[in-house]
């Protein structure tokens, strides 16, 4: 049986100096090994929700917190941020402002140093991660002389240093060129499939994730509007049409015009191949 990795139950949060709740009664569960997309417009509370997963909320950000977040059955309220760091790796949106060490290698070693891991183990773990993410060339570079994509790669490596089972990423491709973005997303897919990491990522480029994401959560004004597998979400009335990825969007427009979708239960194609197949089968 697959374990429940994340259980979010009725979570609400209001930042101390804010007038309204950034999260309102959000409830959902993530099984171990799933790849979850988190979508929502700017200010909808995506970052806030993600920060609940590694305990930054409520331990780091003060405010009114309600409900429970459980990571592998343990409430974040009963844990502290360092303990949660071992279970949940977090990568932030801004590549530059999350790297605090002088070289890439040191940034990767930083979490291990914080936990007092012996030096020889740190070295072998860093070797491992550098090989895994193909970072040999930038290993000894300064984080300020490498590209944004390489900075995010560094941040991902640092987030993986403690070998967490869950990886949380907050719009990590937002500042990147399309090419680096695809590189990062491909890598995340590999981490998910090969290394069994549970991944939850806030992401604007839904198109790029359709072939490997399991589920999608859509937030609006702090409320979880839809959550489920991609099919269910894209067919849901709650999901805004202007946020639909290209192929489903095209398909639904065509469907509206010329009625491609014969009966309402058939599936929406997500990729070009699926679209072609659907059109052929008509």
């Amino acid at each position: 049986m697959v374990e429940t990795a994340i259980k979010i139950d009725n979570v609400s949060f209001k930042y101390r100096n804010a007038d309204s709740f950034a999260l309102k009664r959000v409830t959902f569960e993530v099984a171990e090994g799933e790849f979850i997309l988190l979508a929502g417009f700017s200010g909808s509370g995506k970052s806030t929700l993600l920060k609940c997963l590694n305990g930054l909320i409520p331990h780091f950000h003060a405010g009114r917190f309600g409900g429970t977040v459980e990571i592998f059955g343990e409430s974040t309220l009963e844990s502290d941020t360092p303990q949660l760091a071992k279970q949940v790796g977090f990568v932030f949106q801004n590549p530059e402002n999350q790297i605090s060490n002088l070289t890439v290698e040191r940034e990767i070693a930083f979490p291990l140093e914080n936990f007092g891991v012996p030096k020889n183990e740190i070295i072998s773990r860093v070797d491992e991660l550098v090989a895994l993410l193909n970072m040999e060339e930038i290993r000894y570079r300064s984080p300020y002389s490498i590209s944004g994509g390489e900075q995010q790669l560094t941040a991902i490596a640092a987030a993986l240093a403690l070998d967490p089972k869950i990886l949380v990423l907050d719009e990590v491709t937002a500042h990147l060129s399309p090419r680096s973005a695809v590189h990062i997303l491909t890598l995340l897919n590999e981490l998910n499939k090969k290394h069994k990491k549970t991944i939850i990522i806030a992401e604007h480029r839904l198109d790029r994730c359709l072939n490997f994401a399991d589920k999608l959560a859509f937030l609006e004004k702090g409320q979880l509007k839809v959550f489920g597998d991609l099919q269910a979400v894209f067919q849901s009335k709650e999901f805004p049409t202007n946020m639909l990825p290209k192929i489903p969007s095209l398909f639904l427009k065509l469907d509206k015009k010329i009625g491609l979708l014969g009966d309402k239960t058939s599936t929406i194609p997500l990729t070009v191949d699926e679209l072609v197949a659907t059109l052929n089968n008509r």
Partner: protein
Amino acid sequence: MSLKILEYFNYLEHKSPMHYIDPRGKTLFIIAITCLTIYLDQIIPMCIILVALLPLIYFGNFMKRWLKSLLFLIPVILLVVILNALFLKIDYPTTIAIVLGLRLIILSGFFGLIFQTVSPDDISQTLIKFKFPYSFAWAISTAYRFIPTLAKETNIIIDAQKSRGLQIDRGNLFKRVRNMIPLLIPIFATALRRSWQLAEAIESRGWNATKNRTYLYSLKLKWWDIIVILLSLTLFALFLYLAIADVSLPFWMVYKIPERFELKRLFLIAWEWIKNLFSK
């Protein structure tokens, strides 16, 4: 306004041989050299120190930057030398003034070199070795390291505000200072946001998870560091010996600008000559 000066703080990625010397050794060395340079007041010893400095600057990859900074320093130094030579009320004022100028050149070279070849990391590692709390050492190295980023961002903000019509280099001093306010607000805001994001990031990486933090790298004295330290101690001992025993330098080290070439005298002669020129 020029942000060029910030480049001085830039941590060099490409290391020079000087980078591999332990910062503790370098600190001792600069203390010894500073004491000696300030104590000695003869031209020849100053020139010897200056000549000894050149290979160090060369191996520290610092020659170009040093010469560039001297370009700005020389006018100031010249002014200091001339004023001292004219107005010092002692014997041989020109000699002392020249020593003063050489001293400034030497110290700018040594301090620049040390600045250039001590990485922010060296600073924090040294603090850790001296049992400062890790958070303090971290803050120092991070602050130092963000200076270039801050400079870059400041430039972006200046450009943005200029494109909105802000005139930074116009008007009198008071106006210019007032013009800085539209710059300071966004600069402060970005810095504040950065510090929050940085705090979130280190918190997510297990900051303060244990009291017994380990380090991937820590300072270790190598054989060449021992040499540097011994050399520094020797220089320092020499300084103490000269200062306490009050010995006089060997005769070949003592050279004074002859009376005939005293700057004051040359000035007076020139002055008379000019007066004669016009009185005719």
